[in-house]
C-alpha cells in the first residue's frame, strides 16, 4: 500500500527511474498528464495510495514539432493548445477536431492526447482519429525508446502495451501528402459533455482526378478497443469516395464492430450509427482532400 506521494520529474531518465524503482519494489506509481481521467478515478473506485508521477514538466512530453516529413505531438500537451495551433489544425483537422471534442473548455485546458490514449478507453475520441492519421506512439522505458502504431497500442478496456516502467513521450504522424483530408465524428446524445456512443475517424488521399489512392478508417466505442478497419479503407480506395463507396465503408465498420449494450447505447444502435459516422466523416475528409 504505502502512502500518497507526488513527484514531477524534469527529465525522461528521472521519470523512468521513478517508475522503475516503484516497479522493482512492488510499489504503485501512476503517470499523470492532465489528470482529467486520473483525478476522477482517484475520487471514485480506486482510492488506494500511490506515487503520482507528473510527466508535464518534461520537455519531450510538451514538445510540438511540425516537420517536413513528420509531426510530433508531446503526450502531455493539453488539447486547448493543440486547438490554438493553426498550422496543426490545417494539416490534421480531423485529429484536432477529435481533441477538441474531449469534455468541456475546462477539460480541454488539461486533457492530453497521451492521457486519452493511455487511459485506453474504448470510447476515447482521439484514438480513432490517430489511427486514421497513421499515428505512432513513442514510448520511453528502462530499455530505451520504442515505437508502436496507435492501432496496436490498446489491448483491452483500460489496458495497453506499456509495461510498469514505461510511459508515453509523444505521438508521431507522417505529414499528410498533398490532396489528403481527415475527419472525425462521434455521436453523443447531448451536444457536449458526453462520452462517445460511437466514433469514426477517416483519412483519404486522392489523386489529381479525385480517385482515392489511400485511406484509413478508425472506429471507437464499438469494440473493447478502438479499431483500424481495413475493409472500410479498402472500400474507399480506387473510388471517388462517392456515396456508394462511403456506404460500403460504413457497412464495413458495422461489420467490424462488436459493441455492447450499456447505459450509453445498445448493440443495434452502435452498429448502425458507426456506419453513419464513417459515411459522414468520409465525406468531410474527401471534401477536405479536394480542397487541400
Amino acid at each position, binding site marked *: 500500500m504505502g502512502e500518497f506521494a507526488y513527484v514531477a520529474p524534469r527529465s525522461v531518465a528521472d521519470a523512468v527511474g521513478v517508475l522503475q524503482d516503484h516497479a522493482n519494489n512492488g510499489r504503485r506509481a501512476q503517470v499523470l498528464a492532465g489528470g482529467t481521467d486520473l483525478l476522477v478515478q482517484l475520487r471514485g473506485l480506486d482510492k488506494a495510495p500511490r506515487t503520482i508521477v507528473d510527466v508535464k514538466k518534461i520537455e519531450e512530453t510538451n514538445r510540438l514539432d511540425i516537420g517536413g516529413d513528420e509531426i510530433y505531438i508531446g503526450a502531455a500537451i493539453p488539447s486547448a493548445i493543440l486547438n490554438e495551433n493553426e498550422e496543426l489544425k490545417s494539416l490534421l483537422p480531423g485529429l484536432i477536431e477529435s481533441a477538441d471534442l474531449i469534455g468541456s473548455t475546462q477539460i480541454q485546458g488539461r486533457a492530453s492526447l497521451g492521457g486519452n490514449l493511455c487511459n485506453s478507453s474504448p470510447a476515447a475520441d482521439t484514438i480513432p482519429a490517430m489511427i486514421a492519421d497513421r499515428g505512432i506512439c513513442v514510448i520511453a522505458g528502462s530499455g530505451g525508446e520504442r515505437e508502436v502504431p496507435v492501432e496496436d497500442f490498446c489491448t483491452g478496456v483500460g489496458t495497453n502495451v506499456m509495461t510498469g516502467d514505461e510511459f508515453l513521450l509523444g505521438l508521431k504522424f507522417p505529414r499528410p501528402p498533398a490532396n489528403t483530408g481527415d475527419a472525425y465524428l462521434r*455521436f453523443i*446524445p447531448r*451536444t*457536449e459533455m458526453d*462520452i462517445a456512443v460511437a466514433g469514426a475517424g477517416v483519412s483519404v488521399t486522392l489523386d489529381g482526378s479525385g480517385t482515392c489512392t489511400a485511406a484509413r478508417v478508425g472506429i471507437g466505442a464499438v469494440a473493447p478497443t478502438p479499431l483500424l478497419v481495413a475493409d472500410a479503407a479498402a472500400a474507399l480506395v480506387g473510388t471517388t469516395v462517392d456515396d456508394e463507396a462511403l456506404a460500403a465503408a460504413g457497412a464495413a465498420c458495422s461489420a467490424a464492430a462488436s459493441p455492447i449494450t*450499456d*447505459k450509453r*447505447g445498445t448493440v443495434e*444502435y452502435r452498429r*448502425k450509427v458507426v456506419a453513419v459516422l464513417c459515411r459522414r466523416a468520409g465525406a468531410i475528409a474527401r471534401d477536405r482532400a479536394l480542397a487541400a
Partner: protein
Amino acid sequence: MAEAVDYRYVGTSPVRPDGVDKVTGRAQFGADQNLPNMLHGSVLRSPHAHARIKSVDVSKALAMDGVHAAVSGADFPSVQSGEVGGEGGGDVADIAKNVMARDKALYHGHAVAAVAATSVEIAERALDAIEVEYEPLPPVLDVVEAMAPDATLLDDNCFTKNLPEKPDKPSNIASVMVLARGDLDAGFEQADVVVEGEYRIPMAHQGYIEPHACTATVNEEGKATVWCCTQGHFEFRAMTSKILNWKIGDLKFIASEIGGGFGGKTVVYLEPVAVLLSKHAGRPVKMVMSREEVFRATGPTSGSVCRVKIGAQNDGKITAAKAWLAYEAGAFAGAPVMPGAMSIFAPYEIENFLVEGHDVLVNKPKVAAYRAPGAPQAMHAFEVALDDIARQIGMDPLDLRMVNAADEGTQAPYGPKFPAIGFKACIEAAKKHPNYTKPVPEGAGRGVAAGFWFNIGMQSSAEVRINEDGTVIVMEGNPDIGGSRASMGLMAAETLGVPYEQVKTYIGDTESTGFCNVTGGSRTTFATGLAVVQACEDIIAQCKSRAAATWGMDDDQVEWQDGQAVPAPGVNADVSPLSLADIAASAPKTGGPILGRASLNAQGAGASFSVNFGDLKVDPETGAVEVLSFTGIQDAGKAIHPAFVEGQMQGGAAQGLGWALNEEYIYDADGVMENAGFLDYRVPVASDLPMIDTQIVEVPNPSHPYGVRGVGETPIVAPLAVASNAVRDATGVRINDLPLSPPRILAALSND
C-alpha cells in the same frame, strides 16, 4: 378582486439584494460553513438494493485514530408514525428509516452507518472498518412487477391503504386512490374517436448543482445549532426533532444560501445524523454529500407507468377520459400519485372521467418532491393522447384544447370550482404568438402541450422593521432560491410606498423569525408575500396612528399615500405630510420603535396554467434531437419581478426538456444505478438549448393583493409532451415512452 393596476415597484425587475454576494463568491452555501474544532462526517451506504441487515458493528471504526463518533440505526430512537412538513413531508417514521436504515436496506445507497473523524480521508477509511452483515434479498425494480400479488415485498407490514376493505395480505402497493365523475361508459359511447396508450417514464432527479450539506454543533447543554442548505429550515427542525426525539427548543436551524432544490431539499438526509454525531463526539460535525450520493440516495421523482384512454367527438369535445397511474415511491410510501391524479385532467372541463392512482414501493431511493410533483408524468400521458386525438380529427392542437378548456366556474376534477384562471388566455396568446404563426422549419416538428399546477398556500410569518432613518427591514423565513428576497422587497416597497432600494429583505433562522413552511409548492411569493404585505399594512396602520397623534386627529382622519401620512380627504388641517422617514425619526416620542408583523395560513393560492410549444428536429439516421425553438406561455397572476418569473419559466422548460430527451435513472438487474454522475445523467448543457421564449399572461389571482399566483412549478409540466408531440410531428412515428433518447428514436424509426 385585483384589477390591472399600474404599480410603481411591483412588476419591475431590479437587482436582487443578495446579488452582489452571489456574483463575488461571498455568499455562503451549505458546504461553506466551517467551525473551529470541526470534524467531518461520512455515511456508509448499502451495497445491496434490498437486504436484511443482520448486524452492524461500528466498534473497529470507533477505535481508529482520529475517529470521534460512529452511529448506526441502533443509535436512533424508534419513531412514531405521523405526518410532518408541507410539500416535502411524508411519514416521519419513514423519513427516519430513510435517514438511517434499521432492520432493512431498501435501496443501493441507503444509509447504514456514519462516522465523524478529523478528516474526510480518515472518515472514509473508518467506513471501511464498519462491519455489516447483510442477507441480500431479490430487488424489486419494476413498478408493474412490484404490484403483482406474488411480488417480493419491501415491507411485510405494508397493507394497501384506501381499499374498500382492509386487505388480508401485505403488498408493495402502499395506497390507491380514485377520482371519478359522470358516466364513463356513456361518455365513451358518445365518442367519435378513442385514443388509448401506455406511457412509461423512468425516475428523474432534480439535479440541483449544490449537493446536500450541513454543519451541526451540539454544546454541553445539549443545545444544537445546525447550518444547512434547505428549502425549509423550520421543517428540517421539526423532522430532526421527531427523528431524534429531541425538543424543538433544543434545535436551532440556520438556512444557508441554497444552491437549488426544486423540491429535493424539503426533506432531511444528513441533519439528524450530523446532530447525533456531534452529540456523541462533543465537537462540530460537517457533512457534505458527493454528487454520487446525491444521485443514489436523495429524492428523485417517481418513475411511472400511465395508461390513458380518451374519447372525443369530431368537433373536439372530450366525452370521456380514463387514466390508470402507477408511480414508484421508492423505498417508502409517498409517491406523488395523488397530485398526479388531481392534475391530469385539470386544464379541461370533462364530464365523465375516472382516474386510479397507485403508490408503489420499489427498491430505489425514496422519492422527494420535484417541481409540480406528480403532474409531469400523468399530464405527459394525457397531453400526448390528446395530440393523437387532434391528429385523428384533423384539428389544430390549440383549438382542441380551447374547445375543452377549463375556465372560471369550471369544477376542477379534484372538487372546487376554479375562480378566475388564465388557461384560455394562454391558449389565445399561443395562437397569436409569432413563433406559432410562423411555419415549422424544414425537417422539424412542432409539439404543443398544456401545463398546470395547483400551487399551495400554507403557513408564513413576516416582520417588518423600520430603521431610525425610515429604511425598511423585511424579515421572513423562506430560503431564497430564485430571487424571492427581491420580490418581497418589491411588495414591501409598493405597499409602504418607499423606494425599493430602501428595503432590505433577510431570511431569519428558526429563532429569529416566525414559522414558515418550505420554499416550495410555488408558495413563497404568494403566501410569504401575503404575510409581508400584511406586515407592511400593520406598519402603515401604526404610522397613521402616530401621525394622527402628532396632529391631534383621530386615526381614521389620516391616510397613507405614496409613502406618507396625509390628512384624509375632507379633513381640514394645516399640516405637512409625514413620510416614513419623518415618522421613524420621531418614533422615540411617539411610542418607540416601529415594528410590524403578520402570520397566516394562506388560502386561495390560485392555479397557474400554461401552454408551451416547440420546434424539434430529428436526425433520422442517428435519432439525435435538436431543440430549435421553445416558447412558454404561462399565467403568473401578477409577475412581481418579471425577470425572475421568466427565469422560472425558462428553467422549468430546460428541466422538462432534459427529462423528455435524455435524463433517466438507469438501473442494472441488481438495482444499482449505473449513471450516478452528471456525465451520464444528462441534464441539458448550454449548447443543447436555444433561447427560451416566454410570454407572461396576467390573470390576477383574486386571493392576493397584487394578484400573485405561484409560478415555479407549472413550467416543468408541459415540455415533456411538447417534446413527444414534436418528435411525432417530425418523424410520423409516435413514441409513448420517455426519454426520447437517440437509441429509442432510432429503434422506433426502423420499426416502420
